[in-house]
């Protein structure tokens, strides 16, 4: 009997620990049919050019990065290197690279490929999205500005030894696991049609791409993990429409599907479908940002009052159908700096009224609430909150905009309040910098948060090489955010992946559940796919 262990969320601590049972040996062969649910097309298969989570679903099979995120331990682990050593000041890292990694064209990867890939990413004229990560390396910025041809912080010791000097005391793993920093072969990239014939280091090689429909990948036999990958083929189907995906999944046309709240309920209630549900607390925090330029929101008591006035637990339970975890503060559950001792704001309209009265808004006020149509962190939530705020005298007027425009609105500060979802991991320091007073609004301090005590904690955290101390400093900073309530802390996303009983080895990746390391996936004989 094959038995799958789907994610058991034990308390709040053990997260992202789903692995396939090792009781049966994985079957070789077969086809895995995954879905790309976020848009009706892929951006590009030249993964340096595209920052989209949608594209990275394919990228995880096709490419490899220096680091990877290990979902079973929630840690960043070396992928293309076998070991790394750091200098005492924490700025120079020396990598021993894998000697068995081959590109799909058969050539062995060396330190030159990493240097070339990172240098390409820093091409100032091209503005590749991965530049934000590579900029960590000393001298990278000079390449971007065009004053240098090579990144001075990258040094090839020998073919399989690379020395990297960085500018900040941090774990480079946070920077070099992102798909936009994939290691690509120069000779292939320079061919004119690379995006249509991508070549990488991953366990699967490119077979075909029908734009707007699907990408097909085939097993790469010289992949460096012995015995892997298992499947012969991977098909990634584009399916943006949730209702259509639901039908296709029930019709057994696809092996995995992302679930929204409504389907989450339906699938949990179904005796068969409920056996194939993988849940993970993703590193996304959903919140309503309050712009202090709108006068009532400049007052901490008003912001707290809003947190008290909304019955957040009820919304999560009834509307989000428990497809989320209640947010306490900014950092997500998986962050080491998450403080379990802190309890989320309670639902207390009386206290909210009192706070409002203290702040001089005994009769309430009216504000405009910008929202997208997103079912988990958009209009439906706003619609449920409106009557709750009305009870304490606050009138919220929803302003619907497209999801696409949301980012623009937030960056420009063109809102009184806006509900959105923010990536809050895995680098807690980087995420908290979004409330650092010197961070400009356009970078990510969208509520122009300014708190000297908070700044001080972040400065200290950035300078320490002691990991435990850093975790503690960030915990304190996170708790200041809780107290200051620059946002309404709504929830941390629970990503839910439905899967068919014949697919095994799925990982509960908290950075993005659709990003599966496909070399670990396999399908048994029951799969209807040929």
């Amino acid at each position, binding site marked *: 009997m094959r038995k799958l262990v789907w994610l058991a969320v034990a308390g709040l601590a053990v997260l992202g620990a789903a692995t396939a049972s090792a009781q049966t040996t994985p079957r070789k062969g077969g086809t895995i049919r995954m879905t790309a649910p976020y848009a009706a097309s892929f951006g590009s298969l030249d993964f340096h050019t595209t*920052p989209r989570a949608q594209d990275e679903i394919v990228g995880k099979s096709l490419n490899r990065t220096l680091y990877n995120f290990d979902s079973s331990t929630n840690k960043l682990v070396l992928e293309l290197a076998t070991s790394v050593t750091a200098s005492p000041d924490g700025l120079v890292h020396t990598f021993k690279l894998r000697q068995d990694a081959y590109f799909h064209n058969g050539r062995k990867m060396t330190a030159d490929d990493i240097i070339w890939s990172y240098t390409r990413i820093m091409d100032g004229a091209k503005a590749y999205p991965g530049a934000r990560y590579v900029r960590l390396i000393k001298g990278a910025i000079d390449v971007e500005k065009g004053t240098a041809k090579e990144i001075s912080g990258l040094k090839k010791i020998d073919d399989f030894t690379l020395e990297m000097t960085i500018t900040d005391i941090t774990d480079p793993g946070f920077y070099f696991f992102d798909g936009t920093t994939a290691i690509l072969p120069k000779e292939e990239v320079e061919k004119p049609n690379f995006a249509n014939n991508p070549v990488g280091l991953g366990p699967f090689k490119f077979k075909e791409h029908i734009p707007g429909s699907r990408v097909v990948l085939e097993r790469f036999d010289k992949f460096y993990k012995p015995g892997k990958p298992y499947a012969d083929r991977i098909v990634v189907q584009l399916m943006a*429409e949730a209702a259509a995906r639901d039908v296709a999944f029930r*019709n057994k046309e696809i092996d995995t599907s992302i679930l929204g709240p409504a389907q989450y309920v339906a699938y949990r209630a179904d005796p068969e479908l409920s056996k194939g549900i993988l849940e993970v607390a993703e590193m996304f925090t959903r919140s309503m940002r309050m712009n202090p330029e709108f006068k009532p929101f400049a007052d901490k008591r008003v912001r707290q009052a809003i947190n008290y006035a909304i019955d957040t637990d009820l919304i999560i339970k009834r509307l989000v159908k428990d497809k989320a975890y209640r947010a306490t503060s900014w950092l997500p559950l998986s962050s080491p700096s998450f403080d379990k001792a802190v309890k989320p704001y309670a639902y207390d309209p009386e206290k909210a009224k009192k706070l409002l009265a203290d702040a001089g808004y005994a009769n309430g006020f009216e504000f405009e609430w910008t929202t997208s149509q997103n079912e988990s962190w958009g209009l439906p939530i706003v619609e449920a909150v409106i009557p709750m705020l009305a009870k304490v005298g606050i009138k919220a007027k929803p302003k619907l905009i497209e999801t696409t425009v949301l980012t623009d609105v937030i960056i420009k500060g063109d809102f009184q309040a806006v509900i959105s979802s923010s990536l809050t991991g895995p680098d807690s320091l980087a995420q908290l910098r979004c409330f650092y007073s010197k961070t400009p609004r356009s970078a990510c301090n969208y509520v122009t948060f300014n708190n000297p005590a908070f700044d001080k904690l972040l400065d200290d955290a950035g300078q320490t090489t002691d990991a435990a101390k850093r975790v503690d400093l960030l915990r304190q900073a996170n708790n200041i955010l809780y107290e200051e309530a620059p946002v309404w802390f709504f929830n941390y996303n629970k990503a839910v992946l439905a899967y068919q009983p014949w697919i095994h080895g799925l990982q509960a990746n908290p950075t993005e559940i659709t990003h599966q390391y496909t070399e670990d996936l396999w399908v048994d004989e029951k799969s209807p796919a040929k």
Partner: protein
Amino acid sequence: MLIVIARRIANVVPTLAAVIALIFLLFSVLPGSFISGMSEEGRTIDPAVMERMRKEMGLDDPLPTRFAKYVTHVATGDLGTSFRTREPVTTLIGPRIWPSLKLVFAAMTFAIGVGVTLGFFAALKPGSLIDTFSMVGAISGLSLSQFWFGLMLMYLFALKLQWLPSFGYGDGGLTHIILPAVALGVGPMALLARTTRAAVLDVLNADFVRTARSKGMSERRVVTWHVLRNALVLVVTIVGLQFGSLMGQAVVVEKLFAWPGIGSLMVDSVFQRDMPAVQGCILMIVLFFLVINTLVDLAYVAIDPRIRYS
């Protein structure tokens, strides 16, 4: 004949030019930058990168300069570079044309096959059961919300009956195209049923049909020798207009069924603010309309001798 063709094609040019100008202007005032399209939930792009990209794409140039550039490029068949993929828009659109055409042709085959047949037989027996049935069906077909109908088809034929795959392009085979084609074709089908019925009734009441009857022709011969072709002239206009606009109407169906056509590329590109791609898609949609209607005009010349000499 050649002159007729040349004149029809010449008529198309100003419309096409106007469309190019219109879509360029429309989309130059679209809110939200292309950067917003590139950032997803919670993942934003470095402002410095944004600045650079703006420059690279020439978005900081004044509008007239950009327009001039765009027009010269379009004139040479270059539809610009996609913001999203940084590939030429033509390579983006290229692979979408065939699936789009397939879907549109399949939908139209369905619409003509069912609609014209129903309308035709309804007109031959006005007031009969088949007439009432067809016309109630037709007016209901016109009142259906496309995505709702598509969803219903999907549930019924894919999920409940399991006769057909629910979505996607598959290997381009017949089974995958049936549901989207029916969902897309039901509107034109209803319209064609009504138009055909009206056209055939019109022709059946025409004097020359009375003449034909007075010649002692069987009703069947009257219909095949005299009614069909005359009704066709009336139906062809509607077929042309419907056919031509179908590629644009396919937006919803393509989205719902994950069909890799021009329509879904366009919607996606609108939401990602990939202006060059959107402009390219609209241009294709308009071009398709114009080509189909030019062909219909020419078909007229073949069917209706009155036009040939005027």
